[in-house]
Each structure stands twice: as structure tokens, then as C-alpha cells.
């Protein structure tokens, strides 16, 4: 029998440190597969954030740089400007990208930095133990919104993809999900396009991927996928917001 599905070469052998059922791992695989398929492993540099994926540099099997919280797009800018022939991507969660790092992502996008951003949105802070994220839904209970997020007190969840799509410098902005095989396949296609665009010098590319947090949502793996589908997608619609 022939092996038709195996671990991509762009992943190390290190076991992921994510919780059981957390979809970060799927997204890691899709990024690594894309890099294998595009044959760019020897010139790709990933920028890991602060958040659950802080150890992403352990898992990706190519040069990696760890950024401070929220600053991955700035670090990626410094890298891409000095290594234009390399492929640079950031891998960021919702706290990193959409709260503390809002300025960095907006300005990297508006400058049209030729980088790829993998934005993992699971509507909660995972690493610090389940606090409100900028993408936490109205009514959603977290450690810091124990009675549910109230718009008057905590504001509204931010739709990053829609916002960045309005900027002249962005070229490919898409939101996908990981809640079922069909959407995982779509996510893979989007990730691949976001890297191909960089290879073709097409400015700024971002894939926002709806993801789960079973541990902090207090649900099991399967319930989490269902919760994502039923609660997140209505507020964070899937689709391409920009493709030029």
C-alpha cells in the first residue's frame, strides 16, 4: 500500500503542546504542507507570537523567530525588508493580532508588506486561561466576562478580515474555518494562496481561521467544533473579503 497522507517535512517531530482537540495543530499542518508543496522550506522564516502558539518555533521545521506580544508583523517587516527573497509569515492568535498588536497588523497591511499572516481566531485567550479576547462574542462567558460579554461594558468583537480588506495595501484577505473537513480543505486552499501571493510579490495576505478552544470554552472537542459553527460563523462570516 502506498502512503497517501503523512506528516509534512516542514513540521519537526516535536509533539504539539496544544490541548486535546485544539485546532491549532490542523492549521500548523496546513501551513507546513503548503511550504512543502511550494518547495520553499529552505527559505521560509516563520514569526511566532505570544499566546498559545508561542512555541510554534518548536514545531515548524525551518528558521523561526520569536516575536514579542503583538509585534510579529513588525518583526516580519524587518525580516522581509532585509531578506526580500525569503518567504516570511507570522502566526498569530486573536489577542496577539487583534488586541495588543492592532497597530502593527493594520500598518503592515496598509504598507502592503509582502508577507503572509495566519490569524487564528478562537474568540478567547487560551494561554493565559480563558480571558476575553477582542473577538469574544457578545454574551460569551470568559474569566474576565463572567456574566457574558456586554457590549456596553466591553465593546464589540472586532472583525479583522473585513477591516483589513478596506486597506489599499492588502491583496488577499479571507476568513475560513476548521469545523469540518470541507472547511478545512478550503482553509488549506486559502493558506496556499496566501503563500503563493507572497511568492508573486502580491502585497499583504491574511487568512483568518476560525478555531476552537475546548479547554477554555469548557466543551469537548466535538462540541467545540459545533459551537464554532453555530456561534462564531454568524458573527464572523466565512469568505473572501479581498482577492486582487
Amino acid at each position, binding site marked *: *500500500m*502506498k*502512503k*497517501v*497522507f*503523512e*506528516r*509534512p517535512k516542514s*513540521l519537526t517531530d516535536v*509533539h*504539539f503542546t*496544544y*490541548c*486535546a*482537540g*485544539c*485546532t*491549532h*495543530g*490542523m492549521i*500548523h*499542518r496546513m501551513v507546513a504542507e503548503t511550504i512543502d508543496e511550494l518547495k520553499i522550506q529552505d527559505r521560509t522564516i516563520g514569526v511566532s507570537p505570544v499566546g498559545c502558539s508561542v512555541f510554534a518555533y518548536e514545531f515548524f521545521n525551518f528558521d523561526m523567530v520569536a516575536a514579542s506580544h503583538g509585534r510579529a508583523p513588525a518583526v516580519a517587516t524587518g525580516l522581509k525588508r532585509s531578506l526580500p527573497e525569503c518567504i516570511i509569515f507570522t502566526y498569530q492568535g486573536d489577542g496577539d493580532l487583534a488586541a495588543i498588536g492592532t497597530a502593527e497588523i493594520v500598518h503592515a497591511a496598509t504598507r502592503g508588506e509582502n508577507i503572509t499572516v495566519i490569524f487564528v481566531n478562537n474568540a478567547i485567550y487560551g494561554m493565559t486561561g480563558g480571558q476575553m479576547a477582542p473577538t469574544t462574542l457578545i454574551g460569551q462567558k470568559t474569566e474576565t466576562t463572567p456574566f457574558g460579554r456586554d457590549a456596553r461594558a466591553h465593546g464589540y468583537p472586532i472583525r479583522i478580515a473585513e477591516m483589513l480588506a478596506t486597506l489599499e495595501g492588502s491583496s488577499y484577505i479571507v476568513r475560513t474555518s476548521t469545523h*469540518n*473537513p470541507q472547511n*478545512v*480543505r478550503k482553509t488549506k486552499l486559502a493558506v496556499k494562496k496566501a503563500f503563493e501571493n507572497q511568492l508573486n510579490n502580491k502585497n499583504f495576505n491574511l487568512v483568518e481561521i476560525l478555531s476552537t478552544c*475546548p479547554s477554555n470554552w469548557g466543551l*469537548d*472537542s*466535538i462540541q467545540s*467544533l459545533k459551537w464554532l459553527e453555530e456561534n462564531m460563523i454568524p458573527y464572523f462570516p466565512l469568505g473572501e473579503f479581498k482577492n486582487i
Partner: protein
Amino acid sequence: MAKITVEQERCKGCGICIAFCPKKVIQLSKNLNPKGFFPAELINEKECTGCAICALMCPDVAIEVYRQEREKK
């Protein structure tokens, strides 16, 4: 003819592969792995089509899929 292998030490027993397997040929093992999880395992190789949905959905990239190459007609 197809099969999957689940890397027992890598698996965290989240059950996503089981939930999405169209043929329901995967279940959780009765033996704990060193991480303290009951890992997934293939229980019915005859029924496995090698569709790879389990591997596609596995958050720990712990599944490899094998398939008989189709004979060219």
C-alpha cells in the same frame, strides 16, 4: 484496500477523527498512552477506504493513511 496508522504517543484522544470517519472504523483504545490519553486506533481495516478525512481533521498530525494504488486500466 486501505488503512490508517495512529501514532499512539502523539495522539491526545480528542476523538475528532472518530466523529468524522464516514465508515466508523476508528475508536479510542482501552490502553492509556504515556501522555495519559486513550489514543485512537483503527478497528476495522477492511472497511477503511483511505479517504484521509481523519488525518485531515487530526489536530496532532498523528495519522498516516495508506491506500492500494489503483491499477491503471
